[in-house]
């Protein structure tokens, strides 16, 4: 069964260990600015919300790519960037309605969460289990996916 990231913002303390781990795993440096997961801080409400790609079924990024550079990893279900094919046109960054594909100036390619090949560093690093890697059916992503369906240019009909 496919597994996916489950995020429970109410458990997040805002320690940013996930950002550090992601950046180190994927970029080799401890630099939250290079993390594919981002913790958004709501000071007024005292709330922290970790957020990254949901590997959504609609795959807006993949559908919008003109060079077939976003591919599905059959083992993990993750939508992954193939750097050899990505030309850096950035269409996926504006097509993803969740804002979770970003352009990396340093490489001229886009970056997004790829579930670290099936063993996500953010989930391992989270000390409060606000981020866990669980069976896909159990995640809170259904809520986010409902919002995906409300972005209604793309019909919910599935092939």
């Amino acid at each position, binding site marked *: 069964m496919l597994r996916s990231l489950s995020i429970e*913002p109410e458990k997040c303390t805002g320690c940013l260990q996930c950002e550090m781990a992601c950046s180190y795993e994927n970029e080799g440096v401890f630099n939250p600015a290079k993390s594919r997961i*981002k913790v*958004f801080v*709501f000071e007024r*409400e005292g709330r922290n*919300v970790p*957020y990254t790609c949901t590997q959504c079924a609609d795959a*807006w990024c993949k*559908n*919008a790519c*003109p*060079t*077939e550079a976003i591919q599905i990893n059959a083992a993990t279900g993750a939508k992954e960037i193939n750097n050899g*094919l990505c*030309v*850096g*046109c*950035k*269409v*996926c*960054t*504006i*097509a*993803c*309605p*969740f*804002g*979770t*594909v*970003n*352009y990396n*100036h340093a490489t*001229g390619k886009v970056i997004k969460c790829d579930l670290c090949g099936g063993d996500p560093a953010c989930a391992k690093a989270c000390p409060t289990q606000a981020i866990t890697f669980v069976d896909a059916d159990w995640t809170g992503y259904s*809520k*986010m996916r409902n*919002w995906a369906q*409300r*972005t*209604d*240019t*793309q*019909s919910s*009909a599935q*092939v």
Partner: protein
Amino acid sequence: MRYAIIGAGPAGVVAAETLRARDSGGEIILLGGEAEPAYSRMAIPYLLAGQIDESGTYLRHTQGHFESLSIQYVQDLVKALDVESRRLILKEGGSVEFDRLLIACGSHPVKPQIEGLDQPGIHHCWTLEDARSIAKYATAGSRVVLMGAGFIGSIIMEALVRRKVKLTLVEMADRMVPRMMDQTAGNLIKQWCIEQGVDVKTSTRVKAVTPDSSGKARYLLETDGAGEIPADLVVVATGVRPTIGFLAGSAIETRQGVVVDDHLQTSVKGIYAAGDVCEGFDWNSGNRAIHAIQPVAAETGRLAALNMSGCKTLYTGSLAMNVLDSIGLISTSYGAWQGKAGGDDAQQLDASRYKYIKLQFEEDRLIGAITLGITEHVGVLRGLIQSRIALGEWKQRLVRDPSRIMEAYLAKTQ
């Protein structure tokens, strides 16, 4: 069932694949008008910039991709459509009969009415063949004049800069990318490009292109506003139009493009249109519109194919969205970025750092946006617009600090 698809760009290719997924036994014929594998015009600037080779522009990279899906890929131009006998007449003399048809033949570049633009050495930058011609002449130090600083012109500009040519960009409007950027952003992009060494001349019209009799350059461009400009190569990027000429005299209703209904069907039953050639609806206003952009091509290609194969799927209109990289300065625009009567806006400008964001609201919903110098989480602007999220108290927070788009989205959805 026999499906024919005119056009092997993103709309046509996505449609062919969607049809195959829906109908394993149907016959699918994909017609490409150029003697090339199915490729992406969007990738051409990266080819010219030397970042990829020609195969990097291909829409699909697996050997035998279409054969493996039993999609027949035919390289020929469609000369005419006979609606009565449901037949396409091909340029090379053959014909293709169909039960259902998708018109996805895209658009073609147009030259303005200027004397001397039909000479050799004056090129569009639209096809792979154009790119090969440009690559031949756009060599280091050569004098290149690029006519048109719209979206396409501005993308080609970056490629030409990377080829180290001496570049002059001539634009009739008073700023760069006038159909995607407001005055503030368009002027900042211009200023940035000038700083990067491009000679940008806005509010300038080319009057004539003549061979340079002095022999110092290949051509002289006579302008009103900027004197005479010498050029070894002229690239014309002054706009594109839907390719509908071959439909003249057929029963298919056309205006600017092929007119479709809310299922992407044309005025003739069983014949659909998608991509650049298709005149659909603007998602914001509901008005007739052609959004000749990659995401819309892929989306309409898929939706049209669903409808063609019997899965009734509503087309709710297309959202205008663009992203542009002007020699490292990245800009985006979404939806009703010009605003709407009775609406209001919020903006934040840091001109010295080339950072700008402008949001347009209707009541407490986001309807359009422009960004400059921002690459983090820009896609959420689409989410905010197309989910029609009522922002409530977050509208005022965005008015105070428009950069908090991601927080607004999360606060309202999580």
